[in-house]
């Protein structure tokens, strides 16, 4: 029936518009990057270091060739008006590799990119985003907008460092981090669910509140006596034998710690729980059509409270990553926007835990790329490079997603009657 009723489409569909953008990017890469690239080889090493197996691409040739790949993909989108996902991916990859060929071939420091290292850095940068966006998914699937992810991460980081040091037990610190996130969530829950305050406003206020409060205690308590209050210890590393030796992805996935393994487990568990259990069905019903859930005897508000608190636990635990991954401890404002990128990852991932996971990796990749370009003394100013993840966020959320559908009752308080 839908085929028969299909509407005559406007020529400038989403795919064609994106294709036009990709053509411009492809031309830019081919001409500008091609002209700027040097004659040296750009080397992509498979391992975690610059030594070992890899493959070489002559700089100028690579920049031009991959620019043309991006261009071709863009043209294909314009002509066919189809294959949006695949062609966008190909075009973006072409553009990025072209840019890398240029950057690496002219670098005064190193012409080699260790892919294993990049993969590991991508995942490492993605971990807090994964926890944050899962916190968002849990909250928003039940119909409460969670803009407070930033604050939840920050509170988790602070509680983890503080209580990890006070108790002298790293693991109790982790528990405290989760509880800290949940405490902040509890404020969100009460204001959003009980007092029907605008959920976005509450979320923003909580972010500011968490920033101010943790900064205050950091200055007044932690900084004067770091050993007593801000020395939680370092997360133990748990490599998996054999698997961690796999090239490129081995070190990234299987040489990890409680945070990296935890994030993978959380994605799997939350996905199964949301889509296979009674709790998950009810949660989604409450987020889509609370009145329908109410009329079959589901306690709408109770379920929302539970989910918002659970979201706080997950995000708070993820926040501990910032202060407990290495021995540096907590410092004020250390989350610096990761919560907002996590929010974007949740939307980019279409409110699905697995989608949020891959979106987090996408943003993590840009973070890793920034780090790499800095390390090879890229001629691009570092301030501009550190904008990369945010630029990627804007384009991803605004352009690539197309029509995402939030849970229908997301952000709408439920009042009976």
């Amino acid at each position: 029936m839908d085929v028969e009723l299909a509407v005559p489409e406007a020529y400038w569909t989403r795919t064609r518009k994106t294709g036009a953008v990709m053509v411009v990017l492809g031309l830019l890469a081919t001409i500008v990057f091609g002209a700027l690239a040097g004659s040296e080889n750009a080397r992509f090493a498979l391992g975690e270091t610059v030594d070992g197996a890899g493959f070489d691409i002559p700089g100028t040739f690579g920049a031009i060739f991959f620019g043309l790949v991006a261009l071709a993909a863009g043209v294909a989108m314009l002509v066919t008006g189809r294959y949006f996902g695949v062609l966008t991916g190909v075009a973006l990859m072409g553009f990025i590799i072209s840019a890398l060929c240029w950057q690496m071939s002219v670098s005064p420091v190193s012409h080699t990119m260790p892919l294993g290292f990049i993969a590991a850095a991508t995942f490492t940068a993605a971990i807090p985003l994964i926890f944050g966006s899962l916190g968002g998914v849990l909250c928003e699937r039940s119909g409460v907008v969670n803009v407070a992810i930033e604050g939840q991460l920050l509170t988790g980081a602070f509680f983890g460092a503080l209580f990890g040091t006070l108790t002298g037990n790293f693991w109790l610190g982790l528990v405290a981090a989760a509880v800290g996130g949940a405490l902040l969530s509890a404020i969100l829950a009460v204001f959003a669910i009980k007092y029907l305050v605008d959920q976005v406003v509450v979320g923003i206020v909580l972010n500011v509140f968490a920033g101010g409060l943790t900064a205050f205690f950091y200055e007044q308590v932690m900084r004067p006596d770091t050993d007593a209050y801000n020395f939680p210890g370092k997360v133990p590393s748990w490599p998996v034998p054999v698997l961690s030796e796999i090239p490129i992805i081995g070190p990234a996935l299987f040489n990890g710690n409680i945070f990296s393994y935890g994030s993978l487990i959380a994605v799997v568990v939350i996905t199964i729980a949301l889509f296979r259990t009674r709790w998950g069905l009810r949660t989604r019903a409450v987020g889509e059509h609370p009145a329908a859930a109410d009329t079959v005897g589901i306690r709408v508000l109770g379920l929302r409270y539970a989910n918002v608190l659970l979201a706080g636990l997950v995000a708070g635990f993820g926040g501990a990553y910032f202060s407990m991954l290495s021995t540096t401890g907590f410092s004020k404002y250390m989350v610096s926007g990761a919560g907002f990128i996590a929010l974007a990852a949740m939307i980019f991932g279409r409110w699905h835990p697995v989608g949020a996971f891959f979106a987090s990796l996408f943003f993590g990749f840009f973070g890793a790329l920034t780090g790499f370009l800095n390390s090879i003394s890229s001629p691009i100013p570092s301030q501009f490079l550190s904008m990369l993840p945010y630029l990627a966020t804007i384009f991803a959320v605004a352009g690539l997603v197309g029509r995402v559908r939030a849970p229908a009752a997301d952000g709408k308080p439920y009042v009976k009657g």
Partner: protein
Amino acid sequence: MNVLYGLLQPDEGEILVDGAPVRIKGPGDAIKVGIGMVHQHFMLVPVFSVAENIMLGAEPARGGFIDHAKAVKLVREVSQRYGLPLNPDAIIEDLPIGIQQRVEIVKALTRDVDLLILDEPTAVLTPQETDELLEVMRGLKAAGKSIVFITHKLREVKAVADRITVIRRGRTVGTADPTAPETELAELMVGRSVVLEVPKEEAVPGEPVLEVSGLVVADDREHRAVDGVDLVVRAGEVLGIAGVQGNGQTELVESIMGLRPARAGEVKLSGKPITTWHTREVLRAGVGYVPEDRSVDGLVKEFSVAENLVLDLYDLPPFGGRFALNLDAIAAQAEQKIAEFDVRTQSAQQPVGALSGGNQQKVIVAREMSHPLKLLIASQPTRGVDVGSIEFIHSRIVAERDRGAAVLVVSSELDEVVALADRVAVMYRGRVLAVVSPDTPRETLGLLMAGIDPSSSSHTPGREQDTRGEGMSEHGEAAS
């Protein structure tokens, strides 16, 4: 009914089930004592499957994990037992309204209720679907269920009820036998004799004012909501568009008004193409527009009555000066319109949202008729409006016609269309199936609204097959 189902709490009085008083604190309690309800606005999650919606709240599960196969089996069993075929895996938002209602009924039945409350179930159905529903109700009665059937359509209660109770303004005003004459029931319902017909002279159609040809419009889901519509509305006549809601009427009107782009075809106003005009240009060219849902379009609820009365003309003299609004002129306009259209409001400064539905509608009508009209488009002009206001709005629409304007009335109430229109166009699945006289027998109009053209023996074959295919697959599912 919301009290019975536990959605609201009673201030006084008691509820007896099987002779024993019960306290119903929530819908869960209602289900426990055997009360089920099919709401006027369906309580279904649009993105869930049929089975998911039916099991929600009473999910068969093992250790928290949902036993999907068991849920599907339960749906099949119940739907087979009561002769209500359903595909358990279909997604609700893809189903026609009639089938969604079936899901609601099966949902209540799976909970083993003895009493089923049906709140205005026929408001969204075609006459044929309504007949099917009445048949289902008889079947449920035979299976030993009690049914409370709420409707304002007399034909339906008379057809199916064993006892009738008339409620008006929160009180029981009388009971009647299904054999009582319709006029008696109607009088009980409205408290005074009703004029079922709008008094009007024979129309004197003049030049074509609105010409729509080959119009194609997409809905929000990119489906072909309007699928090649041709229409002509002449000066001095009312063209009524009948049809079950959701057959493209909304998109047709929005496209004429410039609120929704036309994908193909043309709209002309007095011979001039206006297809790509902006809404403001269309309005300023002498078109009045009463939108179908005043809670969304047509009014700014927080604004005062006076402000709402000049929403479209605020920037033109006398209301708008070079830099500021002319508040005196706006106040004078409000005084005059409130008197002329009998808007019941405490003052012109009252927020329009505080008015009753009928008076809100009168504000819209007053505004749209406050400049000279070539064309008046009224969508659902009397939805949710009290009887007194209905008569008033109808008479103003006819007066506008007699003044020489072309009028397009869209309504899902067949009675309203027939009462107002000089010609009736029936829309079905985005097409105008036929343009007929309002004197056409109800049965014929009903069949047309269901997509069947009784006058032609060769039906549009593609459509016909289409509907039959759906029905077949559902039967197949139920049988397997």
